[in-house]
């Protein structure tokens, strides 16, 4: 099966990139995430699966402190990125988000040109020396997002004028251009058609060579196709976390098996 080969592809010993332990998230009085421990490896695709409302997106947003923008949200526990606590007072969430990039469910290109969309991160963080350097960054980001050939002749056209799949790849290019260490993807293919989905999945597999990728998905086939590690969330709990091949063929927890076989969720 496909996922078995992807397990074999997986390089054995990996550095731990993100280590979360005892993470609790509250939205006001609602206890959204209950005591989650996860270790996310470098240069690996980790998939979060689970039924709607199980907290997988909430947990993903904890990893780059995007939940800080929600007033009623409270996060407890420790999340270490390269052994540094990202919720420490010394850490600037803005700096953190430059290191932990994010791609959202709905493609959200800015109402600017394609070039300016990709150059947005580098400009904000001063990642280039001169115009030629910026041009190179933009080109290589677009190439890595597999969209360069489609847009190279119209870099000054607005990003909002692209098709849905192109927009999502543009957003991935935009995230890649900032040179993050971890790329978080929140259901990146849910608004895309099967062809665009296949392109983005292929892209995710390539991104793995440079980054640690965490992807939230509703599609178990997608999780099986693109990830090496899978975490199954249910009702705010992390039920099971392990090699993708194992989760899908031989799950330890009966709830995981029920979800994968379609009985819950």
């Amino acid at each position, binding site marked *: 099966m496909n996922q078995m080969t992807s397990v074999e592809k997986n390089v054995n010993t990996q550095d731990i990139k993100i280590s979360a332990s005892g993470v609790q998230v509250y939205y006001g009085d609602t206890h959204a995430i209950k005591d989650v421990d996860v270790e996310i490896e470098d240069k690996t695709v980790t998939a979060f699966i689970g039924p709607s409302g199980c907290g997988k997106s909430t947990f993903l947003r904890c990893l780059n402190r995007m939940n800080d923008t929600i007033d009623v949200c409270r996060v407890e526990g420790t999340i270490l990125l390269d052994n540094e606590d990202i919720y420490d007072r010394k850490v600037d969430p803005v700096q953190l988000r430059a290191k932990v990039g994010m791609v959202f469910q709905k493609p959200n290109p800015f109402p600017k040109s394609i070039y300016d969309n990709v150059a947005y991160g580098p400009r904000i963080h001063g990642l280039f020396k001169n115009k030629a350097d910026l041009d190179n960054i933009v080109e290589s980001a677009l190439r890595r997002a597999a969209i360069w050939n489609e847009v190279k002749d119209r870099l000054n056209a607005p990003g909002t004028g692209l098709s849905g799949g192109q927009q999502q790849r543009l957003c991935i290019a935009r*995230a890649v251009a900032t040179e993050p260490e971890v790329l978080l993807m929140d259901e990146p293919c849910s608004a895309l058609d099967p062809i665009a989905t296949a392109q983005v999945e292929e892209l995710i597999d390539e991104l793995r060579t440079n980054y640690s990728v965490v992807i939230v998905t509703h599609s178990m086939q997608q999780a099986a196709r693109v990830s090496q590690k899978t975490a199954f969330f249910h009702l705010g709990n992390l039920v099971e976390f392990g090699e993708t091949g194992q989760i899908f063929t031989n799950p330890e927890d009966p709830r995981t098996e029920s979800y994968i076989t379609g009985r819950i969720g």
Partner: protein
Amino acid sequence: MPVLWLFLIIVALSAFGFIAGRARAYQSAGGDVRNLHSLPGYYGYNVALTALVPALAVLAVWLLAQPMLIENSVSKMIPDEIIAEGSNRSLVMSDVRRVANGLDLAVSSGAMTNDEVNALSTDTSDIRATLGSIGVALGSDVSPEVLAAAQSYRSKSYTGTLVMTVVVLLLAIGGLALAYTRTHKDFRARNVVERGVLGLLIIAASLAILTTIGIVLSMLFETMNFFRLHPWTDFFFGGTWSPNFRGDSDLSILPLLWGTLYISFIALLVAVPIGLFAAIYLSEYASNAVRSIAKPLLEILAGIPTIVYGLFALLTVGPMLVNVFGRGDQGLLGVEWMSGATSVLTAGVVMGIMLIPFVSSLSDDIINSVPQAMRDGSLGLGATKSETVRQVIMPAALPGIVGAILLAASRAIGETMIVVMGAGAIAKFSLNPLESMTTITTRIVSQLTGDTDFASPETLVAFALGLTLFVLTLGLNILALYIVRKYREQYE
């Protein structure tokens, strides 16, 4: 019969129709509502409306048309010879009306009988004295022609009113009878009433539009009268505004337009940054608690009547500015640049304050309509809040904000009370904001208030000014709405 009684009778008829119609519907259904096509109330409304609406409509039209028609026919009775030098037909006609009304009053107060009035002649009695004794003062003695016209006026309006009463009552009763006989359990009363309601809504909408057209047309005609008396080249291209009543006025819009635009510019200079920054703070940074207090407070500013702003300009801001820029050695800056409290700066600053809530609440709506996904995208790339506002939200909201500013500008151009009290009355071209200047709106006020002769260009110029102002603000509004709408489509 007085119109009020007629009206009350129609209303009573229609109320009776409601009850009767409902009862008949019940009866035709054999007392079971489920056998009716519509609820019984609809049958009642159908009868009531059929009785009421046509009768009222005819009444309204008749009341408007009758005086005009009578006026026309009576006016022909007056020969050109008796119209005095310097007077005109409409003045004589107003005399006729006064005499006619006076005679009515004399009859109703019992001073004369109807027959006496009809037999009245200028040879036998002093009508001016008679009418004066019952409280109707006339400016001059009544000539035989005027008396004849007044008598004809009276008899014609008497007949007219009588015919109107009969027609209206017949219509009401006829409508009632028609709808009542049609009331049957299979009659689709609900659909008919719905159509009636639809008609009512259409009339309301078209009245609003027709009124606008009427206003524009009336201004247009007066403006054409003005341009018949005054060269349009002077109005549009002349350089001075100095109306006098000797007949050689310079009436050019340009100095007024300059004052208007200058004051509006200063107002926008005050309102746009403050309003925009307030909107950005309220929509992007403020916590819910702050927003729930600050937004209503800001909107209180919008509810203050402009005359109060005018007082504020005259009594507070003006003297304060004089204290800073004037008074020589006693002033704050020790300069003598400003002498009076009224100035372009005074009016501009106060008008700017008035526009702050306007700009801020419009911009707030526009900023809020920028999708959250844009903010998330930017924050997710490691941008700070202010970078997000500056580089993503502002560019996305810019067309809408430009629209809001244009709407504010058209408010500023049309604003009257603040400039009347704060800007002064001198029409001139000057760049000095500490001098007093005047605007189009203040000149319209001053040309039309007080003793005015509606045939002189000095008065009629107000309509030309008004029309120009209207065209100016209409253009700005259309441009603003076009920009705002185009922007809205982008995210839907």
